[in-house]
């Protein structure tokens, strides 16, 4: 694993440097356009980037969890989810148990956050928690744990900050240009005779303002797609059961509910692109994630085993000899036999059915919104809202009066 993380890091680093170059070139030309000095623009770009990086490093996870309205849960809130995360923590050899968050949203999605493995969190929507059985949940959590283990979270927040800086810079530059064209028209004409040189610089500046965010976004998405493949591969390795993740992805793909709290910058953090559209061409350049059907196909054609080499072979098969997606040093790591699926009727598997799962999650959501539960003797569970004023409540089914 370590070799593979390192060599992947080098490839990603090349792309990150590419993005940084876009930022610097943009800053330089904007400086030329607005202050007549490239260095000034360069410094502004660098300061902006540095400040945003510091914020992302120290506050990134809380910001991400905050804007997704994720809420932390404890073991007692959902023991099964906790156990599954702990199982994957053990399988991956992660040192510390990540914090677990729930997003109250019927959309099916999940993401990992946190700058290093000792300070990580996993968030999952209540919709996903309801829909997945234990094997599928395990697959999704394994995918998220791989993001933590491979330090994708840090890399992706680093990249999204770069992208953000470029977007902000280009946005403000466009607006400044607009205003100076409106109010400063006399000044520039008064200076007069700037010559062809200035016009060319202005032209390049405008071009960069338009192109830089697009280029940066394409690079960002390229990094993100590569990371998704690796996380799928290591997820299969940890669970020794690629079918779990494959069938979870299938369920997720079938859902059309969009996540309310996601936005373009946070999209690569999720297990699937929250903005995906149906019928998009495969291997789209402007997608944060590989096409979901392709991810499923690769996982399903891992016939011989669950090792990274098996994933690589499956990738090559799906792409008709399209070569390797994972770096070669990782592939020597030895065989990893598949495990059998958890049988439906196994006595050791307290697999709650769909109805129980739904009830379980909705109870959890009531509790998290500070509703109190009163169990009536007739079997009804009364949910009392937090702002309930009266001192007793009447059961709507049997009419018993309960003190609150």
């Amino acid at each position, binding site marked *: 694993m370590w070799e593979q993380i390192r060599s992947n890091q080098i490839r990603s680093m090349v792309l990150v440097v590419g993005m940084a170059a876009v930022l610097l070139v943009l800053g330089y030309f904007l400086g030329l356009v607005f202050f007549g000095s490239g260095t000034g623009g360069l410094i502004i770009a660098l300061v902006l980037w540095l400040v945003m990086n510091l914020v992302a490093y120290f506050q990134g996870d809380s910001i991400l969890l905050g804007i997704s309205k994720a809420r932390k849960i404890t073991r007692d809130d959902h023991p099964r989810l906790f*156990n599954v995360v702990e199982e994957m923590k053990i399988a991956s050899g992660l040192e510390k148990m990540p914090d677990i968050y729930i997003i109250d949203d019927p959309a099916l999605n999940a993401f990992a956050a946190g700058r290093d493995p000792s300070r990580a969190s996993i968030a999952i929507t209540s919709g996903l928690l309801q829909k997945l059985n234990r094997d599928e949940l395990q697959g999704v959590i394994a995918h998220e744990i791989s993001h933590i283990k491979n330090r994708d979270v840090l890399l992706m927040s680093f990249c999204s900050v770069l992208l953000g800086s470029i977007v902000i810079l280009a946005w403000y530059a466009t607006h400044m240009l607009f205003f100076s064209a409106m109010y400063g028209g006399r000044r520039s004409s008064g200076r007069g005779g700037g010559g062809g040189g200035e016009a060319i610089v202005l032209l390049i500046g405008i071009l960069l303002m338009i192109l830089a965010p697009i280029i940066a976004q394409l690079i960002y998405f390229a990094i993100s797609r590569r990371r998704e493949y690796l996380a799928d591969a290591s997820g299969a390795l940890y669970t020794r059961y690629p079918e779990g993740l494959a069938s979870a992805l299938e369920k997720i793909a079938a859902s059309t509910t969009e996540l309310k709290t996601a936005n373009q910058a946070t999209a690569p953090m999720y297990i699937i692109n929250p903005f995906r559209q149906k019928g998009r061409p495969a291997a789209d350049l402007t997608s944060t994630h590989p096409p979901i059907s392709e991810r499923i196909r690769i996982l399903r054609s891992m016939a011989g085993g669950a090792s990274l080499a098996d994933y690589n072979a499956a990738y090559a098969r799906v792409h008709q000899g399209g070569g390797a997606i994972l770096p070669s040093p990782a592939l020597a790591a*030895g065989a990893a036999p598949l495990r059998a699926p958890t049988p439906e009727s196994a006595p050791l598997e307290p697999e709650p059915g769909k109805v129980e799962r739904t009830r379980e999650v909705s109870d959890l959501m009531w509790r998290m919104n500070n509703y109190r539960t009163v169990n009536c003797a007739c079997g009804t569970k009364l949910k009392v809202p937090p702002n309930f004023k009266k001192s007793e409540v009447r059961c709507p089914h049997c009419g018993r009066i309960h003190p609150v």
Partner: protein
Amino acid sequence: MIALYVVIGVLVVLLILVVLNFNSLVRLRNQTQNAWSQIDVQLKRRHDLIPNLVETAKGYMAHERETLEAVTNARNLAQGAIGKGIDAQAKAEGELGGALSRLLAVAENYPDLKANQNFLALQEELTSTENKIAFSRQFYNDSILRYNNKIQMFPSSVIAAMTGFKAGEFFEIEVGTEREAPKVSFA
């Protein structure tokens, strides 16, 4: 003079290589030891869960005294086997696993028991503990594989031989019993 510098340079590079390789050998060995202790943690967790499970089940399945006693006995044997070598421990744990799955299979016939919240929670814990045992064993074997690769591959193999690192043993389970997928018979 230049020759001297070259020799010193080569020596420094060699020294750095030795130190780096030695350190990663130590790190990998520590990881295997840590992984091994993780297995023990999970086995102990299973032992701790069983008295509770038996206590809860007792009230509902009075007719299954033998099954319950078998579980309790197997658990005590497994606890006694701690520290008596891997083989003895693996055997006792295997028997405990068998007794447990018999108990849970019998529990299927007691709807009242299956509706008991306490029992359901214990069952979830037990399932997860079984998984955790399997996964910690898997991680132990993964770490051993990495460690052994490091020991056997050049150049770390030279350093390992000089400083006395020995290849670790895989945690194999009796082939044919646990490895095989469970068979369902309709006879």
